[in-house]
């Protein structure tokens, strides 16, 4: 029997309850999936942090009902990974806070003026990724898309 060729692109879809109990297992799962696709432990760990931050925000601010679920689409390419995280959206204030963070993207001074709480941990996500996009639809369904490239990270100079 011939073994099917390994594809360059893998799509994984995970849907889990909006409960913080699931996040440690999900972040480890992401890291282990990446390492199984020959991404370095460093790349895997940093991707794990991205997923942890975005999923924690989704649980904290986007899951107001105990029946809320979070969808994580995780696409692995040979040179990058893409995470799409969707939550049902939270209360008006939280949505507005996220909108502000989104709208202030690129405005360094404005971002610096925001409090730690207002940044929603997204600063570290931006730091560890190449692309971060947000979408909030009319029903408050919130989608965060993060792309992290392999080369930039692997070739990054060592610090410290």
């Amino acid at each position: 029997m011939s073994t099917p060729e390994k594809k360059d692109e893998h799509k994984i879809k995970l849907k889990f309850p909006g409960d913080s109990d699931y996040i440690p297992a999900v972040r480890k799962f992401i890291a282990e999936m990446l390492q199984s696709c020959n991404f370095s432990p460093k790349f895997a760990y940093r991707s794990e942090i991205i997923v942890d931050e975005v999923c924690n925000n989704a649980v904290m601010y986007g899951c107001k009902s105990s029946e809320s679920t979070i969808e994580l689409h995780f696409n692995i390419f040979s040179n990058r990974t893409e995470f799409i995280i969707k939550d049902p959206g939270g209360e008006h204030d939280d949505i507005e806070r996220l909108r502000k963070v989104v709208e202030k993207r690129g405005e360094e001074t404005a971002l610096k003026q925001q409090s730690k709480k207002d940044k929603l941990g997204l600063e570290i996500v931006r730091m560890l990724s190449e692309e971060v996009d947000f979408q909030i639809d009319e029903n408050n369904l919130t989608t965060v898309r993060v792309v992290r490239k392999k080369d930039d990270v692997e070739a990054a100079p060592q610090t410290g």
Partner: protein
Amino acid sequence: MESMRIEIWQTEETPNTTVLHVKNELDSSSVEKLNEVFAEVLEKYPRYVIADMSEVTLFSSAALGRFMGFKKRLVESKGDLVLAGLTLEIKSQLTSLGAFKIFRSFANVSAAVNAYKWEREGISQALTLSFPPELHFVPPVRQLVSRIAKQKGYSSRDSFRIETIVDEVCNNAVEHGDGEQRRDVDLFLGIDREKVEIKVVNTSNPSKVEVLKQLSKSISKTAMPDLQDKRGRGLALIKMLSNNLSIDFSENGTSVHVTRFRGD
């Protein structure tokens, strides 16, 4: 310095819990007010109480003493008092006072409500996963399920057995799946305090479907498999580790459904 404010909330989603939204400084002057509110809750409200502490800026030992007394009375009447949304500073103070030997703490009210529903109402939670049919993805998948089981209070032994079931079923789904179609493997995990349900769906290799059907029949008939037979050992192991095993073959694919009770 702002004096303590406290409000009693009940939400439609959680009619069996009471949320106390506590704000500002819980110093010694707040003790009287705390006593009044606690008495009101004991008299009129559900006995599972979540104290939302996200806006508390000081938690004196006098106030902590009142919280402990309140918790004791709630527990005596089959209720509980849990803390939610503590700031890092207050959390650190409470840790040094040893308060977490008595109180459970949650990141926010929603997490506390989830814990209540899990423990007291026996709700079931579900996770679904689709992954490409490649063997190197199976170890992370088995670990994912095992970690969730542990996080939800299942013992290491139970979690390992659940992990073994997932490993066997997913390995079978990949190895005996239809290599031409390369349909993703779908995993469903349902978990509650009593049991886990695992369902794995794939498209079987057409040339193996008949053999699988025969194996499935023989496994369902016999308590123990023939250990000399190389085929079906995985299914036999799953059967041994589970309380219920069923396999369905349909146009939509092959579906393996396993139930395992906690601590069995």
